[in-house]
Structures are given as C-alpha cells and as structure tokens.
C-alpha cells in the first residue's frame, strides 16, 4: 500500500537527483573526453562534445616525454608509508579504547586538539622540524606529516570500544601476548573500520599536494600532484595534456571509490556520527 503511494515521490526524487548528479559529474565527463581529443579539437569553437577519433596520444606523452612514470612510482611509495601510519593509528585507537591508564583522558584530549590546528599554521614549523630530522627531499619526509591523524585515531577508538573485553581476556588467559592479541583478534574484528580508514588514507595520500610541494626539492621526488601542477603553470596551454594528467590522478580514485563505497558509508554510521 505504502509502496504504491510512494511511487510518484520516488520517481520525482530520482529524476531530480539524476539531473543533479549529471551536473555534478559533468566536469569529470568533460575531463575524460577532452583528454582523448586531438589538441585542435580541445580548443575548438564551437566545442566538440566527443572526440572525432579517440586518441591516447596525450597519455603516451605524459609517460614518455614527461616524467609521469617516476611521479606515479613516488606516489605509490608515499601511499605505502601512509599504510604503515594506518597501522600505528589502529594501535593507538586500540590503546585508548581497551586500556585504562594514567593520563588517558588528557592524552586523548591533546590528540583531539590537533584537529583544530589549520595546516597553514603548521606549514612553516613542520618544514623546519623535517629539516631538523634530515627528511627534506625524501619520500618519507613527504609522508611524515600525514602519517597519523587525530581523526583516524578517534574513529579507530570509537569502533574498537565495541569489541567485547571478554574476548581479549580469554586470549590473555591462553597466554597470548598483547601484540599478538592485537594483530590476530582486534585487527580482524575491526575489518570494517580498517577498510574505511584504508580508503581514506589512500585517498589522502594519493591526492596530497602540500607536503610533496614543500618537501620535494628535486624532480625525482615529485609526486603526481606536483607533476600535474607543473602542467598548470606551463605558458602554452595544452588542455588535452592537462586533462590526461588530471585523469591519471582522478580515475584510480574513482575506481577505488566504486569498489569501496559501501565501506565508507557504513563506516560513518558505525563510528557514531549519528
């Protein structure tokens, strides 16, 4: 009964949302089609919606004439470092969630306080600190400032609080070490939040622009984002090449998101943001 009554509403809403989605995603459509156009069609008046003959020349140029292969490898290395950071955040989340210890509340509050500090405030000092640690112009230095985030620790803590303490106690009685309990019981039980955080960390590391630009002094340490920003600064505008570069950055993110989008939405519901 309700279904029939609701049908017009569903159809109307679906249509409106569909139109909105078309508008929202149009820049992506334009990016991908333009990257496949010959250079002359990309700046033609009136514009061509689709390329007359799709060509991957711009992509080939990115990886042969330009250094995008090197940038891609560097970006993947930075992402890998951030995966280690993800593990450290999970450990900290577990520590805050499942142990009582002196100073817990104060330390956790300090962790949350870092959320309020704008990146523009910490930019210069962070560079000085990395320089002190001799990490400038290294891929580790690019990753270091974003290895852990207060928000990540917070989400892990929220989730891990729900793991039954009896389970951990039972493992302790069986003589399992604390680190072993963490890797063999806590982490597997936390799969949903690990998936959510993993996707977020991947996206953050892949897209990051600030630290690569500040920390990487030589071209062999550039990431995709920095390499792409160089394309933006070129005097002769070549939209095809620019759109191809943008696609190289955006398409992997779209793929990851399509695969994991259920995890992202679920994760938000799970972590208490309701």
């Amino acid at each position, binding site marked *: 009964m309700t279904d029939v009554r609701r049908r017009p509403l569903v159809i109307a809403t679906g249509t409106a949302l569909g139109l909105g989605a078309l508008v929202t995603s149009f820049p992506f459509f334009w990016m991908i089609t333009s990257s496949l156009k010959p250079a002359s069609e990309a700046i033609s008046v009136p514009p061509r919606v689709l390329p007359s003959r799709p060509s991957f020349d711009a992509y080939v140029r990115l990886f042969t004439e330009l250094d995008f292969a090197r940038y891609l490898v560097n970006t993947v290395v930075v992402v890998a470092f951030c995966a280690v950071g993800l593990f450290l955040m999970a450990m900290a989340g577990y*520590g805050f969630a499942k142990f009582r210890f002196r100073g817990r509340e104060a330390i956790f509050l*300090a962790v949350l306080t870092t959320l309020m500090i704008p990146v523009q405030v910490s930019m210069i*000092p962070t560079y000085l*600190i990395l320089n002190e640690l001799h990490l400038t112009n290294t891929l580790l230095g690019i990753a270091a400032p*974003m290895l852990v985030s207060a928000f990540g620790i917070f989400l892990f803590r929220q989730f891990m609080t729900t793991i039954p303490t009896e389970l951990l106690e039972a493992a302790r009685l069986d003589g399992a070490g604390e680190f072993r309990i963490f890797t063999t019981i806590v982490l597997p039980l936390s799969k949903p939040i690990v998936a959510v955080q993993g996707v977020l960390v991947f996206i953050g590391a892949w897209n990051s622009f600030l630290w690569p630009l500040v920390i990487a002094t030589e071209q062999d340490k550039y990431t995709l984002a920095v390499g792409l920003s160089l394309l933006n600064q070129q005097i002769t505008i070549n939209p095809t090449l620019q759109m191809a570069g943008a696609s190289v950055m955006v398409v992997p993110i779209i793929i990851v998101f399509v695969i994991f989008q259920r995890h992202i939405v679920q994760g938000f519901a799970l972590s208490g*943001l309701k």
Partner: protein
Amino acid sequence: MTSDGRAAGRPPGGAAVLAARGADVHQERESVSRAGRGRWSLLRPGAPGRQTRRRTGPWGRRRAGATPYLFIAPACLLLALFGILPILVAAVVSTTDLDIGGLGDPSTIRFLGLDNYERLFSDPKFWQALRTTTLFVVLGVPVIIALSLTIAVGLNVSTSRLFTVLRAFYFLPAITAIVAVALVWGYLYNSQFGLLNQGLALVGLGPVGWLSDPNTARVSVAVVAIWRATGLNVIIFLAALQAIPQDYHDAAALDGAGRWATFRFVTFPLLRFALFFVTVTTLIGWLQFFDEPYVLTKGGPVGATTSVSLFIFQNGFSFNQFGYASAGSIILFILIAAVTAVQLRLRGSDD
C-alpha cells in the same frame, strides 16, 4: 574526510617555497625552534633507547602498566611532532622578524614582542582578507548545509540500486585531488575556449570573466568549493538519516502526520548531532578556505579572493616574512578555536 580529507590536499605555493628552501635552512634550528629542541632529541631516529632497553618483555607478558603506552606511543609521538609542536614553534616565530635572511643567518633575528600583531591589525590587506573570509563563511555555510541536507533527504527516499549509484556521483568531487580539480574547472572557466562562455555565446550572452572579474571570481571559486564540499556532508547526513529507526516514521504515520510534518518534527530533531557536526566542520573549512582560490586565482583579481589562509601563505612564502605570517596564523588559530568553543557551548545549552 571532513577534518582529515579536507586537510589532505591543501596546496601551498610554488616558486616562493622553492626560494625559501634555497636558503641554508640548516642553521635556523638554533634559533627558531628553541621551544622544541629538548623533545626532538628523544625522537631522533638514532636514539630510540627506551624501547630497546626494555627487552625483558616488550610485547610479551609483563606488567600491564606499560602496554597501553606502547600501543599509543608511536602515533602519539608523531602527532606531537607534527600536530602540536608546530603551533608552539609558530607562536615563538610570530614574536620575531624571521625572514629569508634569518633562515640563513640566525644571528640577525630580532625579538619583536607583539609588533607583528600590531602591524597585522593596522594592515588593510589583512582586514580585506578577513572580510573576504567572513563573506565566504556567511554565504558558504548555509548553502553547503542546505544543499547537502536536501540531497541526503532525497537519497534517503528509496534504497534501490539506482539511488546508491546516484549517491556515488555526489560524493565523487569530495575525493578528487585539488590539482586535478583546478585544471578541469580552469578549463571550463577559460574565457576564450572554456565551455561555459561558449555555452553563453550560443544564447547570445557573455563573455563572462569567470576568474578575471573580482565579484564573479568570488562566486566561481565558491562554486568549486561547494561542489567539492557537498558530497562528504551528504554522506554524513545520509548515515544519520538511515540510523533513524523506521518505527519512528511508522508511529508518526499512524498519528496521521504528513511527510513534511514527519520530517519537521521527527526526522529533523533526530539529525541534531549530524547537523552540529556538519556545521562545525563546514565553518572551520571555510575559515581555512585556501585550496580553491590558491589553485584557481592565486587570490586575485586584485585580492578579491584572498582569504586569511591565503594572506598568511603569501606573506610567508611569497614575501618570506615568516614572523609576520606566523602572527597571522596564530590569529587564525584563535579565531577557529573561538568559533568552535562558541558552537560547543551552544550545543551544550541545547541539550
């Protein structure tokens, strides 16, 4: 994500950063970072003494006392190093005249007390940046909240596959690299062969200087920011909506409440936490507004899109006035902390 992902892609500037790096930044640690020195020696990779000395049982059976600290230590130390220490360093630097020369030769750095702050408050450009930021906050926050709430309520109408797919379309801009976004929107906004002006020409209008006219540029830059920020908030609202038990709606329907009344008196009050969360993070996001104007307009034309964050960045990295820029960043930090505190208060009295 909100705080996280939003921070993920904040871009700084090109040439000036490189210039700053060129200086011999090795020596500045002597002066700049007095505040943090003691701590650094503990964290230096070469001296991890504590953990190794404890070999008697790092992870195995051992006094439960140390276990939690071992779990939280790595992440918390990194956070202290890159989250908390920088603000202390910034506070110290803001009382000096540290510039490019000071980086090379620390002996030239002078202590200025609060001079930088005085100068800041008499700088018309700072006030203009503050006004611009306020404008973005006042217009941007309601637009993003209204838009994302509307979309989320729409997406919550049905659980069909189509609606799930549609959700993805709205979320996509939120996770796209700002550098790529800048290229694509810059291409659309291009005044000669950009698609928007070509579209306008078809109906006999334009051309519009999307990024070259001061007022239009503000709108253009804000549109890109709204386009990027909406998706994440949609997800948060949608999660909150889906967490509301169906019983509530059924009960309201039994009582004869219409759709609008149900939304107004049942759904909306239950969204209070999500609404609060989205408001705070959106507000902070606009206060820190930086990415879009930086990559699209560099703060121009004639400073029309220079936000406080961009003002700080330009003074720091284009003019190399690190002390002056740090003073600006401390003011921004206080501003954000104050706004957050007021909001927490409001929420507290609300419950």
